[in-house]
């Protein structure tokens, strides 16, 4: 039985239906067969101090990334993760997390790389659930081990690599990091310590739209009109554009990818997960310092 969409009025104006659920809807639909709630947070201990009843934890760091190669886990490892968490291919997966669903969006994007059909976010995430005084529990559910079919990760549709970025020049790029990272004043997030890119700045021609602009009070997504003001009027995106978003390692830009792809209906949006930690250290690629986007060099194909 497919799980019906949340028909909350707020979501009607977004380009894609069935990608968001409200906290009210979730509270009323917990424990349904075929629905699995997943918590994915930036702070890796939050699930342990209390989570939505029945939710399983997926840790972006240890579950979704390969421990050795800088890449996502293999097809086999993703299957093993789904089996261990008791998630089947036909299940509706509802993801929520801390900090305006920052890491929850990242987990959702990785689920989509592996082709999981029905994945939705809880609008407002963990903070909204807590702010509304809803129930949190500490017990870890024991779900029956599933038998997820071996997926094939698709790296060509939703994901961009550095050569894709070089070939993309002339098309819009969105840099979702903070202004200080964009200008090159720093190579890491404000309030986070120094972290490893050799040069500060941004990819030439990228427009600066810090990711959290898409989130309003309580971490919920802003109404469509406000999102259009930010990304269309503000960053100059036009319907039909082919867009690449990036940040530092691809997590914050997953949030922007979600907004552009599902809420605004851009059909060709990719997340460059190599992001600044790769581009800012690559030999021989152009970068721009300062607040101006700069001009795109010739595309290299």
């Amino acid at each position, binding site marked *: 039985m497919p799980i019906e969409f949340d028909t909350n009025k707020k979501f009607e104006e977004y380009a894609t239906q069935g990608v968001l659920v409200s906290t009210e809807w979730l509270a009323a639909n917990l424990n349904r067969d075929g629905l699995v709630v997943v918590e994915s947070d930036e702070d*890796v*201990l939050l699930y342990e*101090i209390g989570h939505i009843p029945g939710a399983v934890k997926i840790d972006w*760091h240890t579950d979704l990334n390969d421990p050795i190669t800088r890449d996502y886990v293999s097809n086999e490892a993703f299957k093993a993760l789904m089996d261990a968490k008791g998630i089947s291919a036909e299940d509706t997966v509802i993801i929520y997390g801390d900090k305006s669903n920052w890491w929850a969006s990242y987990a959702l994007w990785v689920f989509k790389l592996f082709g999981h059909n029905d994945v939705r976010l809880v609008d407002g995430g963990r903070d909204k659930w807590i702010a509304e005084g809803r129930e949190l529990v500490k017990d870890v559910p024991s779900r029956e081990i599933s038998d997820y079919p071996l997926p094939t990760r698709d790296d060509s549709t939703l994901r961009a690599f550095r050569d894709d970025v070089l070939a993309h020049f002339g098309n819009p790029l969105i840099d979702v990091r903070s202004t200080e990272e964009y200008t090159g004043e720093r190579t890491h997030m404000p309030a*986070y310590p120094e972290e490893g890119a050799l040069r500060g700045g941004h990819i030439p021609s990228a427009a600066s739209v810090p990711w959290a602009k898409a989130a309003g009070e309580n971490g919920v997504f802003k109404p469509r009109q406000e999102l259009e003001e930010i990304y269309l009027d503000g960053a100059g995106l036009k319907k039909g554009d082919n867009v690449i978003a990036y940040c530092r390692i691809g997590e914050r830009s997953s949030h922007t990818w979600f907004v552009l792809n599902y809420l605004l209906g851009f059909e060709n949006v990719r997340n460059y997960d190599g992001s600044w930690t790769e581009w800012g250290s690559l030999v021989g690629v152009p970068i721009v310092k300062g607040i101006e986007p700069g001009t795109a060099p010739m595309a290299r194909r």
Partner: protein
Amino acid sequence: MATETVESLVEDFQSLAVKDRLNLLLEFSENLPSLPARYADHPDLLERVEECQSPIYLFVEVADETVHLFFTAPEEAPTTRGFASILHAVIDGLPVEKALAIDDDFPSRIGLSEAVSPLRMRGMRGMLARIKRQVAEKQ
């Protein structure tokens, strides 16, 4: 007196599987002592640890050559609270000289880098550096 030495703490963490190290960090987090009223009423006295993503504030007291640490961080920041609590366990109650001699890099040796992002580990080193700076200023 400090309840743990750096070496016993490193050993405690290293003897556990990665997942259990997180549980131990959680235990520390739950045991972070709350702020006494004299600081709770004077947030201006506390220093913010800018290296940490979550808001955490600390204050160091030196009395009779002995170091005392005070922290405050929200319940919704368990990792940061856990780090603060570890530092409390190894430093609070030490004589100044021993507190200043704590290895700046011991946070890298507790084996949490695989479970917690490297950024967070740098946050813990930032906390330690600020504590030692305050100790040096106040001794």
